[in-house]
């Protein structure tokens, strides 16, 4: 399991964090996502054998946000 932090500069409310956390259900290989509107970031724990950084960034983009590796 790998743990990575991404900056999400375009979150505008706590609901955005909730939307990003919903990737837990949509993306295979995700163990846990903690998104924070206060910090404008998300910490994702994932299985690097199933998922990579690009896929995560693409999934976040699909939700309407920009993920930048911290």
């Amino acid at each position, binding site marked *: 399991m790998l743990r990575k932090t991404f900056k999400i500069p375009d979150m505008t409310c706590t*609901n955005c*964090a*909730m939307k990003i956390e919903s990737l837990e*259900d949509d993306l295979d290989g995700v163990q846990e996502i*903690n998104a924070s*509107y206060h910090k*404008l970031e998300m910490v994702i724990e994932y299985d690097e054998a199933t998922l990579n950084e690009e896929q995560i960034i693409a999934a976040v983009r699909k939700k*309407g946000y920009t993920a930048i590796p911290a």
Partner: protein
Amino acid sequence: MSKEKQPSIDPVVIVTLGILLVAIAVAMIAFPSDSNSINIAADSGLISQIIVAFFTGLTTGGLSCLAVQGGLLASSLARQIEQDYVEQTAQNKKKQKASIRTNSALPIALFLLSKLVAYTLLGALLGWLGSYLTFSPMTRALLMIAIGIFMVGNALRMFNVHPIFRYFSIEPPKFITRYIRKTAKGTDTATPLFLGFLTVFIPCGVTQAMMATALGTGSMAMGAVLMFAFTLGTSPVFFIVAYLTTELGAKLEKFFMRFVAVLVLILGFVTLDSGLNLMGSPLSLQNLTRNWFPSQAEANPVADSAQGEIILNVQNGGYFPATLKVPAGQDFTLNLVTDQTYSCARDFVIPALNFYKLLPDTGTVQVTIPAQKAGSTIFFTCSMGMYTGQIVFE
């Protein structure tokens, strides 16, 4: 992708609607004489409080609640809309627009119904709790100031003024958001019902203010009725905007959020100012401007000040004269005269003297004001910090 099927409704129409509703509320407050007609019942203060709660909901409450709870409603609608969209696209692309419109109304209605029930119960609970607590005007003033700061902070957050203001938005604990998310996945009628109920955990600033008022009633029934009236008031705006937002998408949402931010900012300052008034602070806008422009303050038609008696007319529109000039260094009696007064002006407070009394709608109440030094000022206000005045000792 879905932009092509958007109806051509100008966001300005929505904003105009909001402004119109705010104007109605302002008119209701500015012309309280109209309230005479609705104050026939013996417990008229109660009724007008309910009406104020309803109109607060109808105007500002609906908008600010939507800003905070809109996401939750969107979650409950998202799946529904997504499902309708997929189903209709598969069946017949031409019919998809009508289908989305038809189906999004029901979840919104269920969501709002559930919210109404939840807040009524919350009001009952707060009223019941309030019966065990007594709020002094000072406590209420501090509460109002805290709410005001919270609202201003939230508005500045919406404007993205500084990262620090993000902390004015309370992040619900992870287990709650996860639970909401799992629930929002359902497409049955229970989902919007449940999510509507969950809104009690994310009340907006105006709702929080109303919750404080419900707490202050000290009555289970009154607390419930007050929150019911307020939440009912929020429902039409909530419904209209939520319905149109699902149709118009993010374009309107962004525009709408700015509008809400402006409103919340104004309301925040008003609440803050009311709190300062209720504290008897000379720094409130009303008290400051009265001192800066003394000509605006009404002169002192003091009656019998030589005999140590003075009259203050407590009317639906405030206190007249707003400035009382009295001789320093001697006690005097302040006669508070009401004549069919039903507005909150009846709830008379002199913060510096820790005096608080609900005046009769018609009659005279005497208050002894102790001697003060020359040049000092004592402020008085209604319990909501709306109507104010001052006693100047010279």
